[in-house]
Structures are given as structure tokens and as C-alpha cells.
């Protein structure tokens, strides 16, 4: 059974084409990684899934229904939440207020403030601070928590490790089992190939707006990946 899929998805920024026919499939409970060089179209792909970049209606299907190009608010209400690149916390909101914004969609599920503070205890300690007063890793926790508060079925994470120290990246990814244990389906876009391969069950490699490699993370080799990454 397929939860989320794209079929020949193309995307444009004005006249410039960013995606050239992406076929992608996500099954319930999976953790799938998307890797690829800068400008390969990974972030654009996530933006198409969440309605931030226009897509043809039938090119994106979620639980059997076409959702391409719907407004972002409608897509998140159906259960597809994005942790945006660069975290993008609301600077004038406190940590807790940022988290509460995620609950605006009003979906029921296991995630609430209490569960989230159990997953990331440091956020409870700093819940009154402005979101942007936290360290990069803590801000990333807030961004993940904010998306979880909407109790999505699919969590899309864009570049969680961007600008973070390796030890912090490890800490963030160590929280992943606590998230997927509830049956959450997760897509991570990741520059760090080793991390992506370690935490995911399947991976896709994008190159210049096309899928250059896909397969089970454990079975793809370093050579295959570097060929798919750089096209050499």
C-alpha cells in the first residue's frame, strides 16, 4: 500500500524548471531519505508536496487522493507536515508558543506538549524563551516539535543537520526512533550521506531535478551513491 506518491512531478520557479519528472513512493511507517547535491531539487520536491511550490493536481497523491497544488493549509490538515529548511521559527513567539502554532491544524493524535517535552526535555526548561534565543540544535527540536504538534501522518524534514555540529546532529537523529515508534512515516532530506544511509530504510538520490538512484539504504554501495550524486 502506498501512502504518498508522485508521478512524473515537474516543478518550475518562473521559467526555470527545477524538477523533471520525479516518481516517488512512500509506504506507511517507512523512514525514507532523499540525498543529493545542492540544487538537485530536494527542497523543491518537499515544497511541492506541501503546497509551497505549485504542482499539477494529479502529480501528487496522498492516501489515494490528488493533492498537488492545494493550499499549504489544506495539505497540512490532511496530515502532511513540513519541518522547513533553516528551521524558520517565529522570532516573536516563545518556544511554547511556537509549538502551539503547530497545533493550529487541530488534528487528534498522540502528540501534545507533554509528550513533546518528554521527547525533548530541554524545551520544557526553555519554554518561556523566545524561539530564536536557543542554540541551533534546540531550535531544530522546536521546529520538529512544531510539526509534530499537528499530529501528521507524514513528517517531512528538510536538512535537519544544516549548520549543526556533528554531536548535535546525532542527538537530533537519536530522537527519531521515539517519533517513528508511533507509526509516523518520515521523509528526511539530508546532505550528510552517511547519516541518511544509517537512519533510513530506503533512499532516493536526486541529481539536477531527476531521480538518479533509489533503493534499500543497506544495499546501495558508496560507488553507486557517488555516481548518482555527481553523475560521473
Amino acid at each position, binding site marked *: 500500500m502506498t501512502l504518498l506518491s508522485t508521478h512524473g512531478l515537474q516543478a518550475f520557479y518562473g521559467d526555470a524548471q527545477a524538477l523533471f519528472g520525479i516518481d516517488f513512493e512512500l509506504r506507511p511507517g517507512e523512514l525514507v531519505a532523499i540525498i543529493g547535491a545542492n540544487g538537485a531539487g530536494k527542497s523543491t520536491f518537499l515544497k511541492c508536496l*506541501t503546497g*509551497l511550490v505549485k504542482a499539477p493536481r494529479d502529480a501528487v497523491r496522498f492516501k489515494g487522493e490528488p493533492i498537488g497544488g492545494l*493550499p*499549504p*493549509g489544506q495539505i*497540512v*490538515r490532511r496530515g502532511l*507536515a*513540513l519541518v*522547513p529548511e533553516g528551521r*524558520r521559527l*517565529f*522570532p*516573536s*513567539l516563545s518556544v511554547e*508558543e511556537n509549538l*502551539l*502554532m*503547530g497545533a*493550529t*491544524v*487541530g488534528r487528534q493524535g498522540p502528540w501534545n506538549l507533554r509528550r513533546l517535552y518528554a521527547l525533548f526535555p530541554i524545551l520544557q526548561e526553555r519554554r518561556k524563551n*523566545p524561539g*530564536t534565543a536557543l542554540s541551533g540544535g534546540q531550535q531544530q527540536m522546536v521546529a520538529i516539535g*512544531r510539526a509534530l504538534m*499537528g499530529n501528521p501522518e507524514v513528517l517531512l524534514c528538510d536538512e535537519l543537520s544544516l549548520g549543526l555540529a556533528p554531536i548535535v546532529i546525532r542527538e537530533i537523529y537519536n530522537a527519531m526512533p521515539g517519533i517513528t515508534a508511533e507509526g509516523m512515516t518520515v521523509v528526511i532530506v539530508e546532505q550528510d550521506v552517511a547519516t541518511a544511509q544509517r537512519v533510513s530504510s530506503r533512499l532516493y538520490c536526486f541529481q539536477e531535478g531527476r531521480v538518479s538512484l533509489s533503493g534499500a539504504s543497506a544495499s546501495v554501495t558508496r560507488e553507486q551513491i557517488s555516481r548518482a550524486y555527481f553523475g560521473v
Partner: protein
Amino acid sequence: MLTDLLLQAALLGGLYTLFALGQSLMFGVMRLTNTAHGDFIVLGAFGGIAGLVLLGASGEAVIVVSIALLPLAFGFGWALQRYVLNGTLGRDPLPSLVVTFGLAIVIQNLLLELFSADPRSIETGGFNTRSLALGGDTAVGALPLVILVLAVAATAGLQWLFSSTAIGRSFRAVSDDREVAELMGLHAGKVYALATGIAFVLVALAGLLQAMRTTVSPADGPLLLLFAFEAVIIGGMGSFWGTLAGGMLLGLAQQVGFRLDPGWGIWAGHLVFLAVLVLRPQGLFPKTR
């Protein structure tokens, strides 16, 4: 003498604060500079005057009309934002300036056509001339005191709404990052409409009180806009207590000017405004986070 000066300054400042709060709210939530703001205040005043023509002038009618006008103003502001002003928002501030400037001209001429250029006021059955003696030779007008109390209450109310409620949280979120706010399921257009609805309640209140305190005529809008704008800029964009402080400082400057020479009051206010722009362009209390 000094007490009296400060008292009169605070009373005038309260009025300017009420003029300015709606503008401050709209700018804070959606970076929209409404150049028709003063004309909407005048429109609110004439809305009250028209209501009293229908109901007949009496103390009770003034209260009924005032209370009835506020929800009407909310609906008007909501619809104006939702169906007109939202279409002008974007990276470029010019469309919203041009459209609100156009609205200002339309309102002025519409009011001129309907009510002529005669100055009019709302008769409050003598309340506007009543005063309270404070001992010595100091006295305050009852109406200006009511205006000051309403201004402080409106400021505190808006600040509370912004900092402690879900509505305020959504105002701040769309103001910070509209795209991410929409990713959270917020409809920015509806949030903006709510903000403008609330702003227009304050606009109507300011118009009613202005017409009770003195007279209004269809061409008054631009000067009221200027006072509102000066109070917002002096106080610092995005801070309601700052707007209150800005209104008070403007009131003080004008009162000092009036005492030096009756022709200097407004001019002294402009001078203080210019001085703040030069010395502290971000205003006295800009939003710090």
C-alpha cells in the same frame, strides 16, 4: 501650572493614542500603511452623526448609536481587508499606498456630497462641557478623562490580546513569517481581516469621541492621519505601549506649543516628531524581538 500642563497633555495624548492604535495594529500585523486611516476616523464620526439623525438626538441615542456602530465597523474593516486590501499586499508597498490613498479621496468626496462641508458634532447632552474639580484651580473635562481612560484600556487590551491569546499568537506568527504560518494551517488572509476588523472598532471609537469632543468635517482626515502616524512613529512600530507613549509625547509637545503661542501647538508637535525621526528613527520603544 506644571501639573495642569501635564494633565492637559495626557488628556490630548489619550485622544491621539486612540487615533493611532488602529494604525499601529494594522502596521504591526501586515506592514500595511493605511493612508485613508484619518478619513476612516471621520467616516466613523459621520456614521455616528447619521445614526443620531435617524434616532433623534438624546443622551440614550448617543449611547445606542455608539454601541451599534462598533460591530458595524468591525464587519466593515473585516470585509475591506478580506476583499480589497489583501489583494494589495506583497513585497511592494506601493499598491496598498495607492489603493488606500484612492479610498481617502473617495471617502472625502462621498462625505462632502452627503453631509456638505459644514463642521458637525455629536451632541452629548452637555457631557462634553462637564468637568471635575481637582482642588486648587485645576479641573479636568469629564469627556477628555473618559477618552484617556478608554485609550489606556484599549492599549492594555490590545497588548494583552497580542501577548496572551491564540488570536494574538496568530497575529504575530503571520507577521513574522507568512509562509510558515500558512504551513501551520493558518489562512493569512483571514488573520489579516480579523486584525483590520479590530483596528476599525478603534477607528470608529476614535471618530465618535472626536465628534463628541469637537467638530468634524469631511476634509479633516489627512490631519488626523498625520497625528496618528506621528504617534506611531514616535512610539516605535509594533509596540502598543510605545504608541501610547508616542501619543502622550505628541500631546505634551502640542500643549507646550499652545502655551507659548496659540498658533504654535500643532507645529511644536511636528517638530518633536521630526526630532525623533532624526535622533531615533526606530522610535522610542520599537518591538525588541
